[in-house]
């Protein structure tokens, strides 16, 4: 992968990281979107979609409500696609890189929230005095901090992806990588199914879920 592609992936991962919480929440941070466009950058949309779909399923595990703590799958998916594209058994490699980066991203969000609180407290007197410029400054600094966080998480993920391709890939057999891929897929399907059922609950929508499952199964069978 040349330097231009690495910079493009770093930029894309950073945008995905910013989109998750700070701005503009237009869902480019969704793994399916992050993965598809990372794949397009690398000229391998199919891998991007496959990896993106996997992490999209993982994301159904936890809803981003209130102060919920959740892993960050956007930049993680970008790193996972960078690990997976064009390599034999690359899907398994993408699973390892993606899950570890998601964990790192989630922890970095907790740290960011604490840093934001500290910054707000430092400017408390000015904000309480109604100084609009100070308020805007604290807020914009928070967005900047999130940008730096997103750059660091994406860079760490891409670095891990590069290491995994050069050191892990030659050391693991295709069978092992297939097993890792299966492990990732099983975790994703379990998370998505459990998350969906919790979301739907036991009310009227459960009937619609059952209807949808029947329709989906019929579509798969017809294909």
């Amino acid at each position, binding site marked *: 992968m040349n330097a231009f592609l690495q910079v493009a992936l770093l930029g894309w991962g950073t945008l995905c990281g910013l989109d998750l919480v700070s701005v503009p929440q237009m869902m480019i941070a969704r793994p399916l979107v992050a993965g598809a466009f990372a794949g397009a950058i690398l000229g391998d949309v199919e891998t991007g979609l496959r990896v993106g*779909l996997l992490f999209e399923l993982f994301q159904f*595990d936890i809803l981003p409500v209130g102060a919920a703590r959740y892993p960050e799958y956007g930049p993680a998916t970008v790193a996972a696609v960078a690990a997976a594209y064009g390599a034999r058994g690359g899907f398994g490699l993408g699973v390892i890189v993606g899950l570890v980066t*998601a964990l790192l991203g989630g922890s970095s969000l907790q740290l960011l929230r604490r840093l934001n609180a500290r910054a707000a407290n430092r400017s408390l007197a000015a904000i309480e005095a109604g100084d609009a410029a100070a308020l805007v400054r604290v*807020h914009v600094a928070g967005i900047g901090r999130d940008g730096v966080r997103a750059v660091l998480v994406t860079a760490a993920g891409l670095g891990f992806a590069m290491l995994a391709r050069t050191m892990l890939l030659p050391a*693991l057999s295709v069978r092992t990588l297939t*097993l890792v891929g299966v492990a990732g897929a099983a975790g994703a399907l379990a998370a998505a199914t459990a998350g969906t059922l919790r979301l*739907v609950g036991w009310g009227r929508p459960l009937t619609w879920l059952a209807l949808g499952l029947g329709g989906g199964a019929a579509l*798969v069978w017809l*294909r």
Partner: protein
Amino acid sequence: MKPRFGLALLRLFAVQGSWNYERMIGLGAGVAEEPLLRDLQREGNGAAYRGAVARGAHFFNSHPYLAGLAVGATARAELEHAPPEQIERLRAALTGPLGSLGDRLVWAGWLPLTIGLTLAAVGLGAGLWAVGAFLVVYNAGHVALRWWALRAGWTHGVQVVTALRSPFLQRGVAVTSVGMALAMGVALPVAAEYVAGAFPGWARIVLGAAGASGFALLYWRVGRGTLTGLRYGLALVVLALIVGTVWR
């Protein structure tokens, strides 16, 4: 649309930019409200303007797409010189309902509905087009909701509860919850087939067994909620690496 209304709307897209555990989205809401308060300054009422800016940045939390409802309502109340205590009470009273409504309408409705359809479309081979369509359709609803919220808050002021009783919101929650269930129902088998399609026969059997066990563990929250999808996935990956190393 007045330029200041447009600026407030634009700032609402970054309402969570300084999210923290103490004020939650309070600072972001204050930043979004500030352009709407500038008429106080123009009236020569600098003290009222500064007081309103300070109040606007106090603790507040809601769904980010509906934060505009509180921002518009409190700005309107400030311009109408409502007592500060009433404005603080209004913000506090809106926190719960706006969070709950937004979570049901967007996080548990519109988002899984559109994502479910996209997952199914990608699984059926629609590729990048499906992802592009998702971004357009989802954000049409997203931007419309943000705009409606700010406008409704600004229109109703302290009577903003009227807007929350709007039939379109109640119908929206009902329709999206049903649509979400149907879309996710279609998506799950299609996505499972798409993911499993890359593996040989023996691996699909392992996938089915590990997936079913994981579903049971996650759904019934074994481990008092400490077991998450990510942790289950990581545990399976470690197990797969061990088995792959031993089974040569």
